[in-house]
């Protein structure tokens, strides 16, 4: 089994009001160093070996992303994030 990560982002020319709203919230929180935010989607697929990369491209191009308005990247077996868990204690997360 191999982990495949597909990330989907709106094309640069398509405006992203959700990202803009996040940016507005950050500005209100005082994070003035953030100049812009764009919001996307990340899919983690558990795929049987050997991974058929052509099939993954097709999956991303037909279902996971809408190529009319979105771009995507495919990473096969990317290294796990160094710090996958939030450093915040659980009580901070549920409040």
């Amino acid at each position, binding site marked *: 089994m191999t982990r495949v990560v597909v990330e989907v982002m*709106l*094309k640069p*020319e*398509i*405006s992203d*009001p*959700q990202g803009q*709203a996040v940016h507005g919230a950050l500005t209100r929180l005082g994070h003035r160093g953030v100049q812009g935010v764009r919001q996307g989607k990340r899919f983690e697929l558990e795929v049987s070996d050997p991974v058929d990369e052509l099939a993954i491209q097709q999956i991303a191009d037909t*279902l*996971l992303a*809408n190529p*009319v*308005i979105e771009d995507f990247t495919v990473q096969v077996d990317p290294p796990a994030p160094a710090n996958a868990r939030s450093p915040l204690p659980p009580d901070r997360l549920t409040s």
Partner: protein
Amino acid sequence: MTAAVPRPGSDDLAQVRVGIVTFPGSLDDGDAARAVRLAGGSPVALWHGTHDLDSVDAVILPGGFSYGDYLRAGAIASFSPIMREVIDAAKRGVPVLGICNGFQVLCESGLLPGALTRNAHLHFRNRDQRLRIAARTAWTADFAEGVEIVVPVKNGEGRYVGTVETLDAVEAEGRVLARYVGGNPNGSARDIAGVTDPTGRIVGLMPHPEHAVEELTGPSTDGLGFFTSILVSISRTGAGRAA
């Protein structure tokens, strides 16, 4: 303002069978069926999980939140079993109207250009909306070109977008079906409320003509024109039936 007078009771129109697809999460299939009936035609219920179009003469994809709008609005519905048949039938010339979520399904299916995304202001918008009919199609033939109508609009992801090349092509080819007038409710590019394919048979519209077919419940009866148009067009041409 008013659409052509329907001819309910006419045998020719009553023989026209318009299929209305119900997906899990469809909301406006009942109103769409009612609009077809009020216009004088015969609505036929179609189910998303089958490959059976029941030999209908035309198909309506109704509003709602098919499959919960998971992934993207209309995305999962566009791969449902019935949509394989709808897409094949559309390519053979069977008229298809997608309203709201149905418009999203048609764009996701690649039958119409562009895409529908989150409203620019991020709010759900629900109001009576003025539209200008901009193209003569199988679904708008009963409207005088350029006429303004009032029908409800209600969407959270109704902002029509496309690349500049797509939008330019849609405009140059006269494929803008209708434009918002008196305020754009969702930030759609170039005030586009609906588009048509080059043949005028596959049509998508974000506002809801099926909610404007009776004075008791709608802001007007302007929406009837979409349904009388297709009934008259099919009864006149005897368009080929879907398999």
